[in-house]
């Protein structure tokens, strides 16, 4: 199995997932159902995370078919540009969906402003992703192509951004620095929460540390943003690197693990001086292992793989 298989496996998830997640979200607003709202926000967040490997595997798929008859560079780059914009909006939706989950736990409800933001972003992302999917289909399916090649406002945006990242002297080191700022924010907060659950600083309630989680989410957002800029800069050095596959896989799992500390009852009810249940401790240890794994695989990109 290679990246082409993974792209074919994943490429319908963002569109269909957002139709389901967004549909359930709008239904939850109409029915005033909190349970449905929680489920829909989890789906939107999960699909936003899946959009990352979907986008990245696209570069591997492009490599595999670029020299086939009927496939043009313009078709591939137009699809790539549209997918880049759609993924950006999906990730933004995912961030606000996570914030909604956090607010739900913290404030016993999602504030109206965030519900509006999530609804608007979901609809915009869905529209953009449907267009990106259609453009992806046009690469191999001549029967759905028009007479003229499709022109989109963003064109080959991913290639333009990629060239900007690699050709501007300050861009790569800026992204590197911000990647470390994001990492420090993320791991600083996550490890603090995990250590409390494992029994360190028992006098502090979980709810006090839960308040810091948005800082970790901002760090994660910074890392995804800068990470995507590295990727579009030189995709070739990542798509053939096993260490990178592991890094992305572990980051997805760690993102899913964060949901436990965001919304589950068990850690939330942990008061000052109380010992956490075994499930919470297992989740804390796995979070630490996963994030250290992400850092290890990121650092090993040039050593275990062929990057840089």
């Amino acid at each position, binding site marked *: 199995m290679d990246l082409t298989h993974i792209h074919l496996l994943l490429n319908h998830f963002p569109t269909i997932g957002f139709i389901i997640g967004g549909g359930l979200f709008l239904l939850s607003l109409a029915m005033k159902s909190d349970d449905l709202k929680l489920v829909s926000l989890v789906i939107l967040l999960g699909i936003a995370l899946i959009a990352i490997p979907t986008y990245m595997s696209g570069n591997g798929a492009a490599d595999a078919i670029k020299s086939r008859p009927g496939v043009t560079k313009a078709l591939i780059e137009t699809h790539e540009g549209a997918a880049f914009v759609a993924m950006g909006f999906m990730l933004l939706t995912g961030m606000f969906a996570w*914030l909604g989950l956090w*607010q739900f736990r*913290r*404030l*016993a409800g999602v*504030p109206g402003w965030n519900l509006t933001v999530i609804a608007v972003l979901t609809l915009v992302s869905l529209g953009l992703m449907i267009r990106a999917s259609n453009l992806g289909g046009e690469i191999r399916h001549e029967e759905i192509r028009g007479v003229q090649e499709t022109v989109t406002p963003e064109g080959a945006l991913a290639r333009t951004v990629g060239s900007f990242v690699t050709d*501007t*002297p*300050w*861009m790569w*080191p*800026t992204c590197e*620095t*911000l990647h470390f*700022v994001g990492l420090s*924010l993320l791991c600083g907060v996550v490890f603090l929460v995990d250590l409390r659950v494992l029994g360190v600083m028992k006098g502090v309630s979980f709810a006090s540390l839960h*308040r810091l989680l*948005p*800082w970790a989410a*901002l760090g994660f957002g*910074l890392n995804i943003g800068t990470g995507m800029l590295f990727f579009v800069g030189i995709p070739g050095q990542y798509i053939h690197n096993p260490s990178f596959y592991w890094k992305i896989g572990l980051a997805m799992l760690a993102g899913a693990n964060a949901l436990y500390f965001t919304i589950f009852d068990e850690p939330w009810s942990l008061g000052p001086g109380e010992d956490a249940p075994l499930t919470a401790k297992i989740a804390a240890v796995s979070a630490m292992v996963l994030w250290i794994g992400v850092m290890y695989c990121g650092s090993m990109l040039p050593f275990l793989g062929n990057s840089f």
Partner: protein
Amino acid sequence: MSLVVGTIVWVSIVTVLVAIAGYVLDRRTARQENVRNNDR
């Protein structure tokens, strides 16, 4: 923009924006939590 100036300027801008976002969110949450506690 040179390497050193560019990195310092953009790292500063993005870091400050992240800090503002985190601060505003935290203040807003604290205010809403106070309102909720007062309502009880």
